[in-house]
């Protein structure tokens, strides 16, 4: 019974990560930066249709954004600390960019979004507890299809999975749970917190992988390797042959 109480208290504390944050200030910031798309009180907006097709069989919306009730501190923290939000205009893929808000303002805004409804708290991954080999295995299975095996990013039709060179451990854990933009989400059933620690450890490792072989060529696979083979190695070999050989007189 007492243990249950402790667990409950811990859960409560985890659910309020920004206890010192100023929810009122967060609300002010929300009114200034977010309300035009996410609606008053974060209810979302979907009905401001302006018609037409954007080339992907989709109606064009102006100032439309999802409801933020119940997305929790996790989502808000991810989208704000990466600079994904505020979005330049609706309908485009959010990209990592310059942060509009300072860390305290982000904490305030996150606390406000978290107060809109019960939602997941900001995760605290422990990459030091993870296993690098298991992390690579899991990353290859779940993530590498889009993000590339050394997390340099890749292509999906209609979207660009980003490279993870600038991702922090918390952001990696958050992205796995919510699946930002068109990324699938992975619940704790699919990837446990322990496995997530390993994945985070691998992504951190992949920022500066151990290039035993020498020149990594940007870690982007066989195309630059082929270019080096054909345009550098082959050119050198042909030059050597021309120096060594003797042209037959006609």
């Amino acid at each position: 019974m007492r243990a249950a109480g402790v667990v409950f208290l811990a859960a409560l504390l985890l659910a309020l990560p920004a206890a010192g944050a100023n929810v009122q200030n967060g609300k002010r910031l929300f009114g200034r930066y977010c309300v035009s798309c996410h609606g008053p009180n974060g209810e979302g907006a979907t009905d401001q249709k302006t018609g037409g097709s954007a080339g992907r069989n989709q109606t064009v919306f102006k100032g439309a954004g999802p409801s933020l009730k119940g997305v929790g501190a996790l989502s808000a923290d991810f989208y704000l600390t990466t600079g994904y939000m505020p979005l330049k205009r609706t309908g485009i893929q959010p990209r990592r960019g310059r942060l509009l808000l300072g860390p305290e303002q982000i904490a305030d805004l996150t606390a406000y979004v978290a107060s809109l409804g019960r939602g997941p708290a900001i995760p605290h991954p422990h990459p030091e507890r993870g296993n690098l080999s298991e992390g690579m295995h899991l990353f290859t299975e779940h993530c590498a299809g889009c993000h590339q095996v050394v997390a340099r990013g890749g292509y999906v039709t209609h979207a660009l999975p980003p490279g993870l060179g600038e991702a922090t451990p918390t952001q990696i854990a958050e992205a796995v749970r919510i699946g930002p933009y068109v990324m699938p989400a992975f619940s704790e059933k699919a990837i446990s917190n322990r496995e997530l620690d390993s994945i985070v450890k691998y992504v951190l490792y992949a920022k500066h992988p151990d290039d035993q072989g020498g020149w990594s060529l940007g870690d982007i696979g066989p195309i630059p390797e082929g270019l080096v083979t054909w345009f550098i190695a082959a050119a050198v070999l042909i030059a050597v042959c021309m120096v060594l050989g003797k042209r037959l007189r006609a």
Partner: protein
Amino acid sequence: MSRAKDTLLSGLVLVVGRGRRRHSSRSDATRVVPDYDTNPGAETAAILLLLLSALCCAGFLVVYGVESIPHKTQYLGLALGLALVSIAASLTIVAKKLIVNEELVEEYPPQEHVGEVDLIAQVAEESGSRFTRRRLFKLSLLAAGGGLATAALAPALSFGPLLRVKYYFGTPWTRGRRLVDEDGKPYKASDIEEKNFYTAFAENANKEELGASLVLVRLPKSTLDLPTELQGYDADGIVAYSKICTHAGCAIAMYRVPTFTPTEPRPALICPCHYSTFDPAAGGTVTFGPAGRPLPMLPLEIDGRGFLRAQGNFNEAVGPSWWGVRNRKPSP
């Protein structure tokens, strides 16, 4: 130590002395190969390059032996590479500047036995005089040769199944077969969450088999837009498709699923090889890329205990396409 030094020195003296003696003894004899001037510069360069190669090899040993050197692989490669390049350069100098060589041109001899050529033609002509049915013989030869060529080309039929297509239509999926994960644990419908992406296999089947693997996703029931012949293939919004792309047979490894449907791209299953893109809400129809036909869909049902089971076989042949893949449907 001193003994080793003595041995080395005496050996060096012997080698050098022997070379000199040989040079003096042959100098007055008549030469076979034309006499060219010596080229001390090239000789020195060749010797220095060989010594450089030896030095690089010594460097290789040092790098290999000393534990604290950083970037060992790179230095090892550099040392070995330089050693090989110096040997090659030295040998090139030897071949081009030091070895004596000359070019000789020899004309073809005039044609001999001019009359005998006609004789051979006559002999060949007369040797065939015992054949009376020449035309039939030639035809028979043609038949034999053609038959052999056809037999040799017959295995090319394996590029696309024409005769034995049963393997491609038969899959492990039968009515009631459960869906299991990579470790063989059966999937419950409640395990499958929206926005998530799962790989499933047929229970107790060989995972390597072409038709055994599935992609499994749950879509909001309101967004499902299955064609009429595929109505009822989903189980409470859960849809299952063959994981093998219908274009070239790669595994469908990417799932695109929007966080906010109105402004973001529709859900899609994407093959990483050539970006064939399939719409899971519309029965696996192709929306982009080189695939020529939809992903085969597996009809699902949920049993009384909540496990996911197949209702039957796929609606189409699994795997990459071939001529005539649409002519037959898999047996249910």
